[in-house]
C-alpha cells in the first residue's frame, strides 16, 4: 500500500507540471493548446538523449527550452500568421513528431541503462532514502507552483490574465495581445517540456508515443483538483488544484491497476469520459434545471 501511495504521489507531482501548463493556456489564456502531447515527448526526447550522452542536468534544461520553442511555434502560427489556435497546436504537434524522432537519433525509443540521471544523482546523495524520486519531482512541482503564483501577479502575468479574461479591454489598454499570448504559450510549454524531461529520466526511457493523451489527462487532473478544493476562486487555489487533482487522479489510476476493477486498457477511455463530463457539467446542470422547472410549472 505504501508503495502505491509513493508511486501515486510521485507521479502526481511530476504530472502536475502539465496541469500547470494547461492551467496557464486553457484556464488563464482560454486557449486549447494542443501542442502539449508532442511537446511532452519533445522534452522527454531531449532530456533522455542528453542523459544518454552523460549530461542529465543539461538534458532537463534542454527539455525546458525545447518546450518553450515548441510553444513559440504554435504562438507564431496563431498570432502572426492567423492560424486558428486549435489548428496551430495540431500543426505544431504533427511537425514535432518528426522533430522528436530526430531528437532521439531517428529511432522510436531511447533507453538509459547505467547512465546518470538527476534521479540517480538524488539517490546517491543518500539523504532521501527510498523517496529520492519523490523528492526530486516534489521540488520541481513546488518550484513550478511558486513560480506560477509569483509570475501571475507581476505586470506581465496580469496582462496575460487580462488577455484571456477580456480581449476588448486588452486592446484598449496598452497590452499587445500577440505578445501576451506568445509569452503564455511559451511558458506553458516550458512546463510541459520540463514534465516530459523529468518523466523520461525517471522512467529511464523515451518513447515516441509517450505523449498520447497527455493533454486530456492533464485537463482531467486540473478539473478534479478544481472540483475538490473548489478552485477558480483565487490564483493560489487554482495552482494548488493542479497538484491535488493530479495526485487524486494517480491514486485512482493506481487503484485500478492494483484491484483490476477495470481492465487497464480502459483507462484512457475512462479519462476521456471524466474530462467530457466535467467540462459538460455546467451545461448539463443548466439543461436539467430548465427541464425540472418546466415539468414543475406545467404540473401546476
Amino acid at each position, binding site marked *: 500500500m505504501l508503495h502505491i501511495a509513493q508511486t501515486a504521489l510521485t507521479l502526481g507531482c511530476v504530472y502536475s507540471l502539465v496541469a500547470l501548463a494547461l492551467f496557464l493556456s486553457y484556464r488563464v489564456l482560454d486557449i486549447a493548446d494542443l501542442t502539449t502531447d508532442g511537446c511532452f515527448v519533445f522534452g522527454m526526447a531531449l532530456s533522455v538523449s542528453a542523459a544518454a550522452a552523460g549530461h542529465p542536468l543539461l538534458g532537463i534544461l534542454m527539455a525546458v527550452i525545447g518546450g518553450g520553442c515548441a510553444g513559440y511555434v504554435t504562438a507564431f502560427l496563431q498570432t502572426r500568421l492567423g492560424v486558428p489556435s486549435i489548428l496551430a497546436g495540431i500543426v505544431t504537434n504533427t511537425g514535432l513528431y518528426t522533430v522528436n524522432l530526430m531528437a532521439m537519433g531517428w529511432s522510436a525509443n531511447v533507453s538509459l541503462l547505467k547512465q546518470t540521471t538527476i534521479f540517480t544523482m538524488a539517490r546517491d546523495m543518500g539523504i532521501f532514502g527510498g523517496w529520492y524520486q519523490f523528492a526530486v519531482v516534489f521540488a520541481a512541482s513546488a518550484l513550478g507552483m511558486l513560480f506560477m503564483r509569483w509570475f501571475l*501577479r*507581476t*505586470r*506581465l502575468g*496580469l*496582462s496575460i*490574465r*487580462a488577455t484571456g*479574461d*477580456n480581449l*476588448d*479591454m486588452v*486592446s*484598449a*489598454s*496598452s*497590452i*499587445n*495581445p500577440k505578445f501576451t499570448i506568445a509569452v503564455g504559450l511559451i511558458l506553458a510549454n516550458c512546463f510541459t517540456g520540463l514534465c516530459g524531461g523529468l518523466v523520461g529520466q525517471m522512467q529511464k526511457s523515451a518513447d515516441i508515443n509517450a505523449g498520447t493523451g497527455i493533454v486530456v489527462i492533464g485537463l482531467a487532473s486540473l478539473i478534479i483538483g478544481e472540483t475538490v478544493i473548489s478552485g477558480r476562486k483565487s490564483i493560489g487555489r487554482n495552482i494548488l488544484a493542479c497538484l491535488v487533482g493530479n495526485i487524486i487522479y494517480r491514486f485512482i489510476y493506481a487503484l485500478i491497476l492494483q484491484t483490476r476493477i477495470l481492465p487497464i486498457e480502459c483507462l484512457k477511455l475512462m479519462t476521456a469520459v471524466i474530462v467530457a463530463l466535467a467540462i459538460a457539467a455546467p451545461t448539463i446542470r443548466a439543461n436539467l434545471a430548465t427541464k425540472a422547472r418546466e415539468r414543475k410549472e406545467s404540473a401546476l
Partner: protein
Amino acid sequence: MLEIQNLSKVFNPGTINEKKAISHMNLVVNDGDFITILGSNGAGKSTLFNAIAGVFLADEGKIILDGENITFQPDHRRSKYIGRLFQDPLKGTAPHMTIEENLALAFLRAGHSTDSFSRISKKDHEMFKEKLRLLEMGLEDRMNTQVGTLSGGQRQALTLLMATIVPPKLLLLDEHTAALDPAAAEKIMKLTEEIVAANHTTCLMITHNLHQALKTGNRTLMMADGRIILDLKGEERESLTMEELLRRFREGAKEELDDDRILLSDH
C-alpha cells in the same frame, strides 16, 4: 494638441455595403478642451474614435497628437497615452480579476516603469485605496473582490479610474453613461467631470443627450455623414438654447437626406 487632417475611412469599399464612415475630416483639438460630440446613428462618431485610438488604419489623412504623427502607430502603443471608455461597462475591466489587480494592470502598464516583472507594492496598494475612496462606492473595502460581481455603474466607475489613474493625454468617452441607470449615469458623469477637471485632461465625449452636450465641456461638435457640420464654442455656444440646437440637429440630418435625393435624381 490633437490634429486630424483630411481623415477618411470607407468600410467595405467596392461592395454594395460600401459606407463612407468619415470623409475628409479636419479637426484641431486644443490643450484642455472638453469637447462633446453629437450626431445621429451612423454619423461616424465612433469611427472617429476608433481611428484616433488606432483600432484601424485610416484610408487617408493624418492623426497628430502633441506634434507626433501617430497615424501608423498600433492601438496598444497609443493606449499608453489615450484612455478610452465604451458604452458597454463590461468592456473595460477583466471580470475574473480582482479590483486591485485591474487597477494594478492599468497603473503598471501606463506608468513609466518598463519592468515586466514589477508587482503591486504597499505604496501602490494604499494609493489604489485612496483613489477608490474618491468614487464613494465603498470599493476601497472590497479590493479583493472579483470585478465580475460588481454592478454596471461600479464597473464603469472602475474603468474610468483605470483610464485616468495615470492621467492620459487624451480621454475618449464613447457614450460611457448610456447603458447605466439614471442615478449611476449621473454619478459617473459627475466623477468624469471631477477627474477631467482635476487633471486638465483633454477629452472628447460622444453623447446623445443634447442637454448634456451643451452643459458639459467647452465645445460641441455635431457630426453627420462622416463630417463635422457644426462646431460650437465660446459665446455662440453659451447663448444657444436647446430648441435651437435641436432645430440645427434636425437640419443637419435633413441636409443629408436632401443630398441623397439630389444624388439619386442625378442618376
